[in-house]
């Protein structure tokens, strides 16, 4: 007997929660306990009084599973609101920041700088033998930039994961 898995589609969920100890563990634990995927997760508090945090989770699954994930999140006591940004009336904006360290000299170094310019990545640190680039964009753009940098002496990458917000004037 072989165990089968189902193909899924990518969804970005925006979740507001009480900014309390253990909330993140509760949410990530829900995903592991019920076998849901987390492709990316970001969290930070978003209100002046530090009472609320916003969590952005990129997950994937067939539509009934996505629906179930939202319902399961929604019933957790510290969760205020769960929005599937893929369902938001208008499209949403996604951004991610990566810090990309590239080491090398000569042509590779020049090529790295040229491509960084094409991708509108900023140089945030430099030595005679290295650059650190800061790149902002959707995950695809960041992926493509990192792939190119592999050819130019990539040594280290840090990524924030996705933050996302719905277009238009409405708030979550």
């Amino acid at each position, binding site marked *: 007997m072989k165990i089968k898995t189902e193909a899924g589609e990518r969804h970005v969920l925006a979740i507001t929660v*009480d900014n309390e100890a*253990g909330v993140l*563990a509760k949410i990530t*634990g829900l995903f592991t306990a019920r076998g849901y995927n987390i492709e990316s997760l970001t969290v930070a508090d978003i209100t002046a009084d530090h009472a609320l945090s916003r969590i952005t989770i990129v997950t994937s699954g067939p539509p009934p599973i996505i629906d*179930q994930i939202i319902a399961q999140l929604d*019933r957790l006591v510290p969760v205020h609101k769960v929005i599937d940004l893929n369902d938001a009336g208008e499209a949403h904006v996604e951004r991610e920041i990566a810090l990309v360290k590239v080491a090398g000299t000569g042509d590779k170094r020049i090529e790295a700088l040229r491509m960084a310019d094409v991708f509108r990545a900023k140089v945030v640190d430099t030595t005679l033998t290295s650059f650190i680039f800061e790149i902002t964009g959707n995950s695809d753009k960041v992926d493509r930039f990192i792939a190119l940098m592999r050819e130019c002496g990539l040594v280290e990458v840090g990524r924030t994961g996705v933050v996302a917000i719905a277009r238009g004037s409405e708030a979550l």
Partner: protein
Amino acid sequence: MTEMSGADMVVQALVDLGVDTVFGYPGGAVLPIYDALYKHPTIKHILVRHEQAATHAAEGYARSTGKPGVVLVTSGPGATNAVTGITDALLDSIPMVVLTGQVSTALIGTDAFQECDTVGITRHCTKHNYLVMDPDRLGPIMHEAFHIATHGRPGPVVIDIPKNVQVATGQYVIPEKIAHKSYRPQVEPDADAIAEAVAMIAASERPIFYTGGGVINAGPDASAALRQLVALTGAPVTSTLMGLGAFPSDDDKWLGMLGMHGTYEANMAMNRADLIIAVGARFDDRVTGRLDAFSPDSKKIHIDIDRSSINKIIPVDLAVVGDAGRALDAIIAGWQAAGHNGRDLGEWWRRIDGWRATRCLDFPEKKEAGAEIMPQRAVKALFDATRGLDPIITTEVGQHQMWAAQHFGFAAPNRWLTSGGLGTMGYGFPASVGAQIAHPDRLVICIAGEASLQMNIQEMGTVSQYRLPVKIFILNNEWMGMVRQWQELTYESRYSNSYSDSLPDFVKLADAYGWTGLRIDNLGQLEDGIKTMIETPGPVIVDCRVAQLANCFPMIPSGAAHTEMLLQPSDVTGTMDDEAKALV
């Protein structure tokens, strides 16, 4: 606002919340609360013999009264021993508040003596949990915890209280109104959904009500509303294990329990229905059988207070999120306002009567006085002997539990206490302790298997201490019968570790604890034995020896459809493919 110690606040909050009983076990990290309890004679503390039993006793108390059960245990092993009962309460939606002691805040995270990460360990087996770091927060948290445990879909809430927070003083504040910032379960059903439900019921030719523990949790009024709606529509009713008692078993609309060990008529009616009205039930795998064959031609209405239960297993046509009782009341009002009289369901009932004619709960037995007792007969005899006594029945988990569900009839809710979702062996006896504490004058009987009973048998001491007249009726077949039944079904009768070896002499054990012990060996002794059990004051243990190799039928084997029930032992083939073996 009053200045007092954290421990006094805990006890004061219990008093203010109307708690009369706490099930617990003391230890180092809860000594301040135990000392505060000592000064408060209005709260009765029941000293169990193991923390797991405290949680099940609290469940029994909660399930038989509708009020939340309260548990008090110490840190570390006290808390971890409580985890099984907490998880049991989560799976069966039982309102419960568990107070755990914790090491002082400065010691948290240092691997201190009897320290464990209680909030971490219980994070996913509670509805919600708290670690209280400041005595000023104790009042609001205690009140909020009871609110969360009892509102929406009920469940267990843990409050972990470090010892220094119990000792330190602070302001005890009772929140004026509990309006949680984010937890606002939807109780009132949506009016449009109700109107659609009424129309769907009125239009259906083959409707069936499929009800669950949610109807019990919604209170006795919900059970009354169910009866009224069934009378109005004329539709048949089946129920999950947890829902037994919401609808009277002697009503001709009652088809019996559905699912793996449900009746043939209930499962066939579910399969052939054109409309399923699910009320407070969650399409558990023990109910549905093979999903792709589950009620293929029906529309489905799902009434549930927990939105995450809807479309979780079975996609439904109409979701009604709200309290089961309110939703049933609204449907009744809508039905009456529309002037529906109910369709003629005669053809549907004729088909149901055809399935009933299989008499699927019949079992072969010898009738002479010296014959061995069939376990089904023992349950039926117990049911017959207790008619009119309105007993509360608890069970352990296994074959005896299914036989009790099949053969014991219930006329009202809150009289059937069993571990459904988690299937916890060791639940039934301590649950009977909790039920007896809540109802000192009622007849409380734990129908047990000899194997399950031993999982919390130490509670015989608790029963003796509080002079509880609990009756334990053991269907003793000297086997972990359900395990053996599955080994017969799936593993060609290779009985790996399923024999109950080295059993105690239960009669002598009763004597050792100051109980009355009885043994019933054959059919001729059954009625008198049960009569003696009921009439004997104080706790009684009955070791009822039953046919050892009897199995529980009818049965939907795992991976099979409702229409593929095994009705008798000769239907069993003795092996299964891996796909079926992989299903629990």
